[in-house]
């Protein structure tokens, strides 16, 4: 068995604020295999973005308290110095963000921004970096890259900008690409193109991918594994097929039932999850989902559910206190 490329162990990120301690990430563990693809799903405020920004060392603020382990290629990034982390960023691990317009500097041509990324991690001449930048733009299917390299970000469409961001992320052949809501700010038709591009590049370049999203539909065809996050923790983890076919956590059920489906009558209404995500300062006791869970039992308000394997599928883990038989029965009634 190969070693995981990235191994996150009991990651906790707590921010000390005037209002109290925000437990943005509270004990998250997962692995990503070389060339593998993981989807991290959750509502806004579930800690999914903070968790990945922390891998890159981008949450090292004064008020942040970070613990756990982030082993990337065997090295703990949480213990790395700022300079060591800088060499990993954009090199071993690259990241793309939600809004490609605000994520590109408005005053610099995209070529200059690409060249900067290339030269940040290698002793490359400007000329060579420019050639590489043109190749990268071609790689992400930007038409006429030799000309477009001298355009400014505002001269691109949203989808093309995200392609530029992806090209920039790939500049130094990262082993891991983290995509934080890569399609959220894009038109629906463009979303599919960007996802197809990420999938294609993942195959061609053998890059491992972590896609962070609030939209299960986004990752259905793109990832191998899914981690569902709620209130700073992973509540369910499984192969993507299992998440869609046999989800175990009531929160996952809620996410699935809020996606439109083609196999149901057109007037079938979507079912929202009632309530709002909890405050990360005052987490509900016991299972953090209990105030919104329709199947809550008294005991669930006291006991924290561990992320345990599901019977007969060791790869599928869920943090739910309901009996496995009860869960299966409930889900079969829901679908």
């Amino acid at each position, binding site marked *: 068995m190969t070693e995981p490329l990235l191994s996150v162990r009991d990651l906790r990120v707590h921010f000390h604020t005037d209002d109290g301690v925000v437990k943005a990430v509270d004990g998250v563990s997962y692995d990503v295999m070389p060339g593998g693809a993981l989807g991290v799903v959750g509502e806004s405020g579930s800690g999914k973005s903070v968790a990945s920004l922390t891998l*890159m060392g*981008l949450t090292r603020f004064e008020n942040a308290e970070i613990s756990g382990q982030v082993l990337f290629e065997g090295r703990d990034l949480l213990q790395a110095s*700022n300079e060591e982390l*800088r*060499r*990993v*960023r*954009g*090199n071993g691990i*690259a*990241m793309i*963000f939600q*809004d490609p317009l*605000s*994520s*590109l*500097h*408005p*005053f610099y041509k995209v070529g200059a921004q690409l060249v*900067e*990324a290339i030269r*940040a*991690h290698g002793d490359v001449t400007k000329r060579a970096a420019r050639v590489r930048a043109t190749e990268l733009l071609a790689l992400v299917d930007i038409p006429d890259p030799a000309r477009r390299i001298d355009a*400014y970000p*505002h001269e691109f469409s949203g989808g093309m900008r995200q392609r530029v*961001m992806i090209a*920039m992320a790939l*500049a130094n052949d990262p082993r891991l690409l983290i995509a934080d809501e890569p399609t959220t700010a894009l038109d629906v038709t463009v979303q599919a193109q960007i996802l197809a591009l990420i999938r294609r590049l993942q195959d061609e370049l053998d890059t491992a991918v972590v896609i962070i999203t609030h939209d299960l539909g986004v990752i259905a065809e793109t990832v191998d594994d899914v981690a569902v996050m709620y209130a700073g923790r992973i509540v369910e983890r499984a192969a993507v097929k299992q998440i869609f076919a046999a989800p175990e956590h009531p929160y996952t059920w809620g996410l699935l039932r809020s996606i439109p489906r083609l196999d149901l009558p057109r007037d079938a209404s979507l079912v929202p999850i009632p309530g709002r995500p909890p405050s990360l300062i005052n987490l509900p006791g016991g299972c953090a989902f209990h105030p919104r869970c329709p199947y809550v039992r008294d005991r669930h308000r006291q006991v924290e559910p561990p992320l345990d394997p599901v019977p007969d599928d060791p790869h599928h883990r869920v943090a739910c206190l309901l009996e496995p038989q009860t869960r299966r029965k409930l889900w079969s009634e829901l679908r």
Partner: protein
Amino acid sequence: MLAYIVRRLLWMIVLLLAVSLITFLIFYVLPSGDPARARAGDRAPPARVEAVRRQLGLDKPKVAFPWKDSQIRRYYDKLVLHQDLGTSYRSNNAPVWELIKVRLPATIQLALGAVVVWLLVAIPVGILSALKRRSLLDRATMGLTLIAISAPVYWLGLVMLYLFDETLGRFPLVPGFDSYPDGGLTGDPAAWFESMLLPWIVLAASFAAIYARLLRSNLLEVMDEDYVRTARAKGLRERDVVVKHGVRSAVTPIVTILGIDLGVLLGGAVLTETVFNIPGIGRLAYDSIVAEDLNTIQGTVLFAAFFIIVLNLLVDIAYSFLDPRVRY
């Protein structure tokens, strides 16, 4: 772009005519001193004053409709047809344009020197206090900037004179700064530099403080932008993240203000020039107001307006180079 500049230049002419009209109305129509008496001399007999009045056309009606012979008509005929600002009522009939031309170098030297001083102070202070937010350095410098902003130029100037003046100062460190040397920069550069040092600092103090605070708050905002996060995620060195991505964006709006401030100062830093006795446009304006020398007042006001408008145009042109999203 060219069409835009031409349009702006035409607007400049309209604006200058409007400014000249307003100053004309203020100083000619509203009661003020008697120019004829000023020209004739304070002790001239009444007959002499009346002769001068006729000679200057001041016996004509101030405003007459339709466009007939009147003071305002004579004024605009000279200004528009001959680009002539008229002659001073005081300084031996000297043309106002000549007076301004002689005074211009000192004002330009004062303004540009002060700009250099305040940028040299404000840029590092603004950047450092933004990066070390809430540190002792940040709190100390921001406190000092409040003092610098609150201190009036004339007060600061007098304090400087009291402390450092060669003859009456307590710490006469810089000789000769209280007298602008004859010939200015071209005469004796060393004496010129010494004479300008304190005026530059006094004039720059409040601007340095304002710019430092502005740069600090701009930079704080910019460092939270997504593209700064991208720059970090690319693995750029923190220095490049701050300078190339942060400061580059944070200084752009400051260029706008810099242009306008420079335009205002080129029109004459009245207080600084008066306190330090620098023969500039501001000093000329001050003297001509005291002497009720109306044509010279008109000239200096028009000149100040001209600089402000031109610098504004230059700022707008510069902006399209600084921010590629701006196109005219």
